[in-house]
């Protein structure tokens, strides 16, 4: 393994956590194989960010250009392709984020690189890279290797690796890779914040979250009562919002809200990573699910395996008793 290139991701002037998670993992891999960790940072006026990255990478490559202000894969992709082509790193890591999934497949096709997406682990086995990714909604792990290619491309699931303090002291290199104007075929217009309704779930200490297991809108009353008993609010997984049973601002997860309550009770939620990334940081997580193999149990502190329609009513009674 010679070089591991990590694409730094940022939005609104902030480096995103996934960047440090990937750099940490890259550092561990490099340490084991004697390679170097390189961060690649594209943006406009990003020198401050670059210096933050120096403690996580041996070298920070910066392409600073006005056309790179907002992420646009049409502008970013040729620049990144140029850098990858000239340096031939063994491994390129991109976040499996809304930004990464819009970019990585076209980068892979453009450069003819093999791509493994949404990886939760990357290992080195006698110099060869292999990855683990989850399929069937997190119920099965798949290990993939790469057919001989000088460079392997992976996208890495957010929160798959911890953020650790950086102990490197890399240098910053400004690259003069050419940057095109924003092409007419794909123009950024604006970012729009999703409106916040009358309940702000991010402010609550107790969240009772429901998923597709609740089956029908009418059944929501059951969890609302439980939330009432515990002084919390009701949150949900995406399918509940898709069905129109709860408003979008109740959705927890990667495309909804990130919450850090003291207590998070997940009811009838399987625990796919897009959901878990939004609630992993809760202090105490309780899961109620009838599938003992549901991935949510791996993240929960306490679990009850069983039918929510039997357990939630029983739990309400027991809580009332415990209070009395």
């Amino acid at each position, binding site marked *: 393994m010679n070089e591991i290139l990590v694409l730094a991701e940022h939005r609104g002037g902030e480096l995103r956590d996934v960047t440090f998670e990937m750099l940490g993992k890259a550092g561990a891999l490099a340490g084991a194989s004697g390679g170097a960790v390189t961060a690649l940072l594209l943006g406009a006026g990003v020198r401050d960010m670059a210096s933050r990255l120096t403690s996580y990478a041996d070298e920070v490559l910066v392409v600073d250009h006005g056309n790179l202000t907002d992420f646009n894969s049409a502008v970013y992709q040729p620049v990144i392709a140029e850098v990858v082509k000239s340096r031939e790193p063994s491994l390129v890591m991109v976040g499996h984020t809304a930004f990464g999934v*819009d970019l990585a*497949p076209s980068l892979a096709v453009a450069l003819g690189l093999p791509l493994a997406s949404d990886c939760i682990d990357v290992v080195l086995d006698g110099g060869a890279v292999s990855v683990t990714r989850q399929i069937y909604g997190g119920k099965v792990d798949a290990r993939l290797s790469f057919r001989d290619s000088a460079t392997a491309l992976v996208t890495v699931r957010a929160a798959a690796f911890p953020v650790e303090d950086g102990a490197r002291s890399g240098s910053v290199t400004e690259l003069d890779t050419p940057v095109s104007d924003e*092409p007419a075929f794909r123009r950024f217009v604006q970012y729009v914040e999703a409106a916040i309704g009358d309940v702000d779930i991010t402010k609550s200490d107790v969240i009772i979250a429901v998923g597709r297991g609740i089956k029908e809108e009418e059944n929501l009353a059951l969890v609302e009562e439980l939330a009432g008993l515990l002084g919390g609010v009701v949150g949900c997984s995406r399918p509940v919002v898709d069905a129109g049973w709860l408003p979008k601002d109740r959705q927890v997860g990667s495309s909804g809200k990130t919450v850090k309550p003291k207590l998070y009770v997940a009811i009838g939620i399987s625990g796919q990573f897009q959901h878990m990334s939004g609630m992993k940081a809760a202090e105490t997580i309780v899961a109620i699910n009838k599938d003992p193999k549901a991935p949510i149990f791996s993240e929960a502190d306490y679990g009850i395996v069983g039918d929510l329609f039997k357990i939630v009513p029983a739990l309400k009674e027991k809580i009332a008793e415990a209070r009395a």
Partner: protein
Amino acid sequence: MNIVVCVKQVPETAEADLKIAAGGKGIVEEGLALQINESDNYALEEALLITEEHDGDITIMTLGHESSEEVLRMSMAKGAGTAVRVADPAFDGGDAIATATALAAALKDVEYDLVLTGCMASDDGATQVGVALAELLDIPHATYVTEVEVGSGEVTVGRELEGGLIEKLTIKLPCVLGIQTGINEPRYASIMGIARASKREIELKSAGDMGLDASSVGAAGSGTVLEELTFPPVGEGADILEGTPSEASGKLADILKEKGFV
């Protein structure tokens, strides 16, 4: 406005007890219900809504085995005019880019203004095919799309970013959009409609028909190799509270009380 929608048939696994097949490279599919991939169903509905407003035809396309024709018939019952199944043993075992390569070849002699895919297949979850397809066709793309507004010669789309933020873009046609769930409310295909559709022809395209070299698709054409499937460690962190619903709930209520939530 002619639209191609790429759809995949996937097994429904949310409630099922999965088994890994002998050889460790697949799951036992027997007994699993097959259905259209969730986000693809939204993509199809979006195409139907767009053509209802702006005219045009819908071509529905899948790469898959014969069973996946059920998804094509269902799509025709909803209003797709043409159905194509990209079918060849040579496509077996391909990764997302190999799959996109075959789909791109199949699109060569189809006239389209817009290609819609789902944003992610619920089984393999690569989240790659749509974007890779666009690059192979050399047309622009956007994925995780939750809003589409058709303009003249372009579309304005909303892309869903993390944290509920929407990124608005305008994209020139033709392009590929990866549609996210929840963008619309998919309609129902009646069994009678499906029965009528099953009398219609489904065009088959093999690797040879499309002038594809078998080594560029399927397992042979894939840059990634599936080594093995395993079950993730389950319930690692969770302390599973055993007993009848009432016993388990009692234990949980005690824990919650101890932690000061009750």
